[in-house]
């Protein structure tokens, strides 16, 4: 730490109930009924363990930050067990914590200008954090829940520790990552339907090393990608999917594109906002149309996660040749595998499979394989 620099503040919020459903075969643990059922089936609490794995890793650096947390099982117990003397905020009723506690913890930490809020949980926890504070703070998830669709989580608790260390050193830049969740009732019946809820500010490891030999990538950003799309526009109808990458097209055209919805533009004017499948089909009936979508960070989905409005019927009507996929190179390179589609219609998924050009900057495209 340089002289004059203030000590960093780290926050810790543990959702003590996260992940308990999974061990007993229930998918997810949202809702008091599920939690009760899980306990009845002998579920064990795993999130404290996950929190402690990270805490142990960062213990040697404890003098570089102050640790703020919530009482008892929401962080205090874990922190103390690892040798920290945390500053404990708020009050809770032990063993009866709920989403409200997570939210108020997050809000309090924003008020205290915490530099990095760590939270341990699953997609539900990420949603709670998002609802409480949006983009008002930098956060990082330590995964504990069984199902994680959100990109706001580190791969595992140890990777989280690495990121925290880099963040403390000032060498982990922050970017927007997706908060996703699926409808748990449907999921327990075997149906997957994930929604995009919003974005959180998350630090990330620079995937691209700055070695002496390799100059900076100078990769395209959302803005140059948007310019490329806009310059290529003709008189077709453009169905714009959700996400910040696509929203930048709206910014480029100076129109109010919804962040999470599917909008349609025609001749660079917005003609429909936050549309559903029927409305989309109605608008493009008998017209030439194009679809512009981006990928879900970390996962690679281009259809079937967060943009179900663009249904197999819409996709077929528009045609694969009119599909425009856009993403920054960083986003593509942080994927573990190919691009994915899961439209709920395997024929449509097959139809979409194969190589596709992804626009990654102005005059710059990258070829990726779509699999299903």
């Amino acid at each position, binding site marked *: 730490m340089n002289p004059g620099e203030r000590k960093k503040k780290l926050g810790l919020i543990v959702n003590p109930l996260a992940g308990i459903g999974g061990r007993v075969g229930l998918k997810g643990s949202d809702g008091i009924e599920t939690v009760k059922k899980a306990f009845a089936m002998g579920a064990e609490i795993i999130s404290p363990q996950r929190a402690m794995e990270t805490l142990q*890793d960062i213990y040697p650096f404890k003098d570089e930050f102050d640790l703020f947390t919530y009482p008892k099982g929401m962080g205090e117990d874990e922190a103390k067990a690892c040798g920290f003397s945390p500053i404990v905020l708020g009050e809770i009723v032990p063993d009866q914590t709920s989403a409200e506690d997570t939210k108020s913890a997050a809000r309090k930490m924003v008020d205290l200008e915490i530099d990095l809020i760590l939270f341990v949980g699953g997609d539900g926890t990420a949603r709670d954090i998002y609802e409480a504070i949006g983009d008002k703070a930098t956060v990082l998830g330590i995964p504990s829940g069984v199902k994680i669709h959100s990109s706001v989580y580190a791969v595992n608790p*140890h990777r989280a*520790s*690495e990121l925290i260390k880099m963040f403390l050193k*000032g*060498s982990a830049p922050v970017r927007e990552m997706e908060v996703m969740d699926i409808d748990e009732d449907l999921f327990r019946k075997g149906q997957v339907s994930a929604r995009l809820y919003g974005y959180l500010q998350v630090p990330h490891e620079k*995937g*691209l*090393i*700055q*070695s002496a*030999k*390799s*100059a900076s*990538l100078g990769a395209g950003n959302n803005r140059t990608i948007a310019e490329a799309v806009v310059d290529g526009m003709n008189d077709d109808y453009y169905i714009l999917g959700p996400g910040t990458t696509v929203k930048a097209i709206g910014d480029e055209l100076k129109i109010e594109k919804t962040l999470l919805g599917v909008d349609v533009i025609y001749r660079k004017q917005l003609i429909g906002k936050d549309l559903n499948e029927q409305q989309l089909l109605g608008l493009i009936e008998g017209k030439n149309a194009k679809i512009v979508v981006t990928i879900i960070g970390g996962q690679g989905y281009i259809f079937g996660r967060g943009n179900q409005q663009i249904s197999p019927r819409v996709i077929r009507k528009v045609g694969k040749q009119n599909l425009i996929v856009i993403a920054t*190179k960083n986003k593509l*390179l942080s994927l573990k595998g190919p691009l994915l589609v899961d439209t709920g219609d395997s024929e449509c998924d097959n139809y979409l499979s*194969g*190589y596709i*050009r992804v626009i*990654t900057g102005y*005059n*710059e*495209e*990258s*070829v*990726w*394989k779509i699999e299903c």
Partner: protein
Amino acid sequence: MTKTNSKTTKYQYQEYADIDTGYQALRWHEPVIYELSRKGSRNEIIPNAEKEIQVKVGDITKKIPKKICRKTPAALPELSEPEVMRHYLRLSQETFGYDSGVNIGLGTCTMKYSPKLNDQLAKLPSIAYLHPLQPEETFQGLLEIMYDLRTWLCELSGMDEFSFLPRGGGHSVYTNACIMRAYHRANGNLHKNEVITCAVSHPCNAGCPSTAGFKVIELHPNKNTGDIGLDQLEAVVSDRTAGLFLTAPYDTGVFDSQLGEYAKLIHSYGGLVALDQANFNGVMTRMRAGDIGADLMHFNLHKTFSTPHGSAGPGAGAIGVKKELREYLPAPLLEFDGSQYHLNYNLPKTIGKTGVFYGVIINVLKAYAWIMSMGEQGLREASEWAVINNNYLIKKMLEVRGVDIAWPNRRKLQEARFHLQKMKEETGIGSAEVNLRIADFGIQTFFESHEPVIIPEPVTPEASEAASKEDLDRFVEAFHQISKEAYSNPEIIRTAPHHCTIHQTNLEPLLDSKRTKVTWRAYQKRGLS
């Protein structure tokens, strides 16, 4: 005078510095030369010329045009001759290179040993005193050397004409992109504006065509074979395709098995194929770009041909083209009429001049000397040794805990892409950290990867034919020790290097051009901020 590091403070990580690595660099704490300056210190004064000469020549300072004369004396540091000698000798002792340690880390750079004999030839006074503006009939010998080298490179590459004008590999690819553009324009094919390349080619294969105005489409290697595959190329090739730019072999040491098929496909759409053979070391005399359908290609003389890449002198690219593209080459072209060598500037379709004069002559001379001393058989053997050395290295490296290789089932030529993903996962130590530690063993830091980094935690060494078995073993041994440290006490690595001239430095400010002061004057004016 600014205080340098105080020698009395104890090194923070002394216990790690005490670990024996078989190497300790010199550490001089040498100040910047301006800080050593003392008013009035000087060298011996050069005596005045004899009267007679003075009278004949007159005041030579008067002969210097007014507008280029400085008004105030230059702000040079004032030191005595021995002080200057000592200063620069010390700095030289703090450098690291092939002459001082194991230097097989820098894959894709071919940092192989360059015989001193070739350096000597390039340094001959008869070369140094030539002036590029002399009439061509007065340096026919040099032109003959250049013409011979041109002929040999044509032979090695299967191309019809060569130019030595580009100043490096990137410049060569840019020049080739300009030739490609000129060719399509001349044929009225203005719609051909897309260039295809791939993520395991050197990034200049994407960057240079982009600078030349093309849209660039980047393919990815198949995760099983390491090739890009005909199916992927078929999915993107079209009437808009201007050409294909690929490195061969790839940066991963994989030689794409379908290059010939790609060339046919690209040609069937009216496109051209440009191969980047900057690193030709593993395939010398064994494959010719021209034979597998390349229309343009380049060598880096400062890699394969006896000049190390980087720091040891200027670069020099040599571009080769098929005869259909000869007229687009940059001027001048070397020609021989049976008795005299000429520099031909009369090229109506040339893309123009891409650099002053005729290229980087000392590299041309070293390449000439090297090929002469090796002969065809020697080149063939050298490429064999480059590949054998690399495959020995692969075998040994894979015995190191936490080290894996990308495309394990694929044969590699002169280099390979290892990775430390498992080590990173298990210990938090990845390639960047190991790279700082390896310098403690008297081993050149290794090249990680070009961008885009598609294999995380990459390590790309290149043995070349010049490495001895002892050097290779030492490299692997160091990796074994570092791996042990990663799994037992990663702090040793995180705080490395401990045996080098300087300990860890924060490089972050260097990446910020606004904060970097590259001259003493800028530092005096604005200080370090």
